[in-house]
């Protein structure tokens, strides 16, 4: 168990390092330079050179890299080339937005998906076919398209929810909640579909296990076989798909944040990419990776709690 966790910790640190290295190399492989980005298109070549010198861009790559790592450990991600703000401070405001969308959407996908998947596996027949087909369609729909459809129906036609925009929790908790609802529902449609498929397949597989036959042969009541034994068996794939789901939602939130004008991490990434704001780009990649890594570690703990084989390892 401890060895397992230690191994996962090492993996986590390796992942963050890899993210830093990759984004760092990426930024340095470009033919533009931060000086050019900062000064805009009207700058003379001499001024750009001077600016790059001032930014330390021309120092040896390893020096820059280790400086960056040192700053990173201290929580300093540098300043934006565009507006000169502290990237760390900016992202610290943004992570909660993205995280709450991803978290709500994951939880809702989990509940809805498990109910649908279990229903399909247990009931079978036409209902199961309906759920399988429906989830196949749902996970194929582009989120931005679904989002617009929902805005059209829920906000414009029915007027139940605000169309776009974000209300900070500290300003108005109820407003905060309703401002997140359409984005969360949008993400849940695809997410619940994936969870439903996994739960359905997992439960069917569980019910086909030899130990289920033992339970049947012992006259175990059917509800206990399904909801205690088979569900527990199917919980492993479902939990890992929920983790993957959260990571995908967290990383993929850029589209939903753009669509609903939510000030999250993805929006920062999009802005940084559009303006070639290199330090901000690296910062977004690093922060997103950190979140993913933490989620993965939490996931490992959940799996260890669920699976006696992992616990004993």
């Amino acid at each position, binding site marked *: 168990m401890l060895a397992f966790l230690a191994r996962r910790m090492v993996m986590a640190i390796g*992942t963050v390092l890899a*993210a830093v290295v*990759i*984004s760092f190399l*990426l*930024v340095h492989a*470009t033919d533009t330079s931060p000086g050019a980005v900062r000064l805009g298109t009207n700058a003379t070549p001499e001024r750009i050179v001077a600016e790059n010198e001032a930014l330390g861009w021309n120092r040896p790559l390893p020096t820059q890299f280790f400086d960056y790592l040192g700053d990173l450990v201290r929580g300093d991600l540098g300043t934006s080339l565009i507006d000169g703000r502290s990237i760390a401070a900016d992202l610290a405001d943004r992570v909660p937005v993205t995280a709450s969308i991803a978290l709500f959407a994951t939880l809702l996908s989990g509940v809805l998906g498990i109910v649908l998947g279990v229903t*399909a596996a247990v*009931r*079978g*027949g036409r209902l199961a076919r309906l759920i399988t087909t429906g989830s196949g*369609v749902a*996970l*194929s*729909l*582009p*989120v*931005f*398209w679904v989002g*617009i*459809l929902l*805005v*059209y129906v829920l906000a*414009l036609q029915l007027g139940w929810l605000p169309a776009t925009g974000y209300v900070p929790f500290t300003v108005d908790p109820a407003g905060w909640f309703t401002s997140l609802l359409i984005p969360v529902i949008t993400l849940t449609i695809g997410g619940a579909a994936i969870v439903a498929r996994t739960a359905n397949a997992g439960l*069917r597989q569980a*019910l*086909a296990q030899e*130990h289920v036959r*033992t339970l*049947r*042969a*012992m*006259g*175990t*009541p059917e509800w206990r076989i399904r909801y205690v*034994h088979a569900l*527990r068996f199917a919980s492993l794939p479902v939990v890992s798909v929920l983790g993957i789901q959260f990571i995908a939602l967290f*990383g993929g939130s*850029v*589209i939903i944040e753009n*669509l609903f004008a939510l000030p999250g991490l*993805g929006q920062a*990434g*999009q802005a*940084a*990419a559009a303006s070639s*704001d*290199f330090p901000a*780009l690296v910062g*977004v*990649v690093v922060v*997103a*990776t950190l979140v*993913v*890594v933490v989620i993965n570690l939490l996931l490992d703990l959940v799996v260890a709690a*669920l*699976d*006696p*084989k992992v616990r*004993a390892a």
Partner: protein
Amino acid sequence: MSVLPLDAADDVAAEPGSPARRQGLSEVLRRPGGLLAAGWLLFVVVASLTAPWWRPYGVAEQDLANRLALPSAEHWLGTDPLGRDLLSRIFTAGTEPLLSSAVTVLVAFGIGLPLALIAAERGPRVERVISRVTEVFLALPSTILLLAVIGVIGVRTFIIMAVLGVLISAAVYRVMLGVAQSVRTRLYVDAARVNGLGSLRVNVVHVLPSMATVIAVQAAQLYGIGLLIVAGLAFLGFGPAEPDPSWGFMIQDASSYVFNAPWLMVPTGLVLALTVIAANELADAIAGKAAGEAAPARRRRRSPALTAPLDGAAELAPADPDAVLEVRDLTIAVDDGADLVTGVSFALRPGRVLGLVGESGCGKTMTARSLLGLLPDGVSVRGGAIHWRGQDLVGRTEKELTAVRGREIALISQEPMVALDPMFSVAYQLTQPIRRFRGVGRGEARRIAAELLRNVGIVDAERVLRSYPHQLSGGMAQRVCIALALTGEPQLLIADEPTTALDVTVQAEILTLLRALVRDTGLSVVVVSHDLGVVADICDDVAVMYAGTVVESGTAAAVLDAPEHPYTQALLAANPHVPDGVPVPVRLASIPGTVPPPGSWPAGCRFATRCQFAQDQCRSPFPARPAHATGSVFCVRADELADAHVSWDADPVGAAHAPATTPTAGASR
């Protein structure tokens, strides 16, 4: 799907009426969804690639009088805010996502697949290194990294999608590694290597074809994901620049007009959604073909009402008044399909052990399972009776059978390592039925559980109680399974190949344990085995089964000492050390030929295709005759062979040797 090497009959049952496989593409297309999906994909690709030649308007051609128009004769799909024709723009825009998503798929498989093949071939050390690296890749937030790439190199869709392919190759590797490893074990690829084939050829000739289905499924799914990502990037503005059209940006555009022109988002969104749905549906169709369609979920099934066998059963009923279990003329069949077991009859008295023996595929496991009403889906009892303590178990509802299972009849399965639930401790798995069967509290149940474990010869019962199944050895797990079977204090134990999966020394221990249990508790036992050593060791009675029917039965001593049926003789000849009572695996291969599969049994004697003594008279129906005092033998020539003192020749020198016995036979005719 079960991973266990069950009887051949079980295999047939697992895929009732399974369509002929390996028909490839035509099979995928026969499924309506698959056909539609393939058709739509083909249409979109062709229409997009040829759009410059057929589109009614140029992509930048503005019809300012007809802005935001609904579909009309001039503009089939309507127009955008600048009066540009949607139909022309949608299909012109299709080329880039359709091609660049293919780039992602090619790159992802181009990297992931060879890595998986290498890892599967080079063994654990190489595999571990590659797997660690890919795990890191998998944990990177790929969408955000793509943004970083765009920030650095600008909007170059094909390169960006190739980068995405690199990131996704880690996931492809993951899936493919598992498949490649299982293919290699299944295909005995190492044998092919020994035969001098190079590693590349082995992979190309042997491994890859077996992976084709999984590759196709994954590739189709990935293609759909790729489409969504290209469109998503274009939606964010990272796509072709205006006035060049892109699906994503057209939807972005529509989103700002959703209030006054909601139609605008319909055509583009539908084309994109349908294309992704088609890719996923194609994947499902391919996967569905491979799995022989998803098996129906298990439903509560009631054996079909039986009417016919009653008269026959009535006349045979009082065969053995002392019997606790009496099976009469049992027929088990695939629903609307072939018979798997026919006309099986046997009786079991209290405290006795009956062996059902035969090669795999003879129906012995099916017969044993039917006693508990635990036949696989799609298989059911079609006729006959199973009299258990005065009631007929055939035709009982699932609920009535549940009351019998565990409490009166219990099962010990052939794979102890998978018979216990891996997610629960031994203590939980034992105390739970103890509380249900005996109505005791938690503490008392635990005490009984420990006692049961000691009764089956487990010394440190407390430690085993705390263990999880994966921490037990095979022999230990089988002892726990036996203890579990005893929790309901049943009168009948069904032991399905109880020792097959165990080491030879452990086999002997388990058999000793079973014998002691019978002696001490007065249990009756039905043992299913292909091993005559096991039968000789613990059985009082024996029923030899071949191709779904009992060919010879009687007391174990009589049948094993003086077998009358050529098949029994052949089994014994293949296993000459039986009388010592030492379990020795039967070398069944020494009986030439194979058991005919269900549905192709010859009329008359089903052993006729392999029997040394087969003659014309064997091939027309004949009745069994009584033998061994309490049993029977189902061979038309049994008397004749016995009188002539002829028995099975274990090593016939080809077929030429067999006719040597016929002169005697001819003389007696």
